[in-house]
């Protein structure tokens, strides 16, 4: 595992396409029976 100084002259740069899945917000249980569901957003 390496961490570099990106200001070095020999740095290379790649633009990445990224797909993420994010855990539901951490909070106390709601009163209703709401369960997990999945939604999408396209920024």
């Amino acid at each position, binding site marked *: *595992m*390496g*961490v*570099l*100084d*990106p*200001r*070095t002259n*020999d*740095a*290379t*740069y*790649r*633009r*990445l*396409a*990224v*797909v*993420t*899945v*994010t*855990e*539901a*917000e*951490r*909070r*106390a*249980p*709601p009163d209703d029976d*709401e*369960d*997990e*569901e*999945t*939604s*999408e*957003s*396209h*920024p």
Partner: protein
Amino acid sequence: MIGVAAATLLVTLAASSRSASDPLDAYRRFVATPAATRLLAVARAEMERYWSDAPADSAAAPPDSIADWPAAPVAVYLTLRDGATTRACVGSPAPVRASLEATVKALAVEALRADRRHPVVRREELERVRVVIAFTDEGVLLADPMLVDPGRDGLLVGSPRGHVAFLPGEARTVRWALSRRSAWACSTRAPTTRPTGGSRS
């Protein structure tokens, strides 16, 4: 212990363009399935198991089987978010294990202790951090990192000393990200041989 209600799974798809040959297409479909939800649960269970005496196979993950790599394996990053702050982030330009589930388990444990830019994650912090799993393509080589939209695209910065990855939303501008050196980037494993071209348009 604070109860947790998984109310809404937010799936964010961030990519600038798509094509029929896009290696991430299968992953875009995957993150909208229950298997992706379970993968998050696997990561959390593995982190909880890290502090317990339970054997590796006893992690309290949901029992349903998980579909493995939806397509050809890609880079995977695992981030722990505390509100708007990146608490820890690790990953690799190349898969670290043969299966997706094993890769995520390995990254989950690494996120707790191996992000050198942050203190190790304490057990009690798990209650409030959110797990984010990101899949990325190999990327398109750029001469100028300023061409990246940091709100939409990832940026992989490489050198003989290593790689760091900025995932979408982690930096407000590329200039700011680079000025912060690697403070907001994902720690990555040793660089791997990667093609120097890219077909994404």
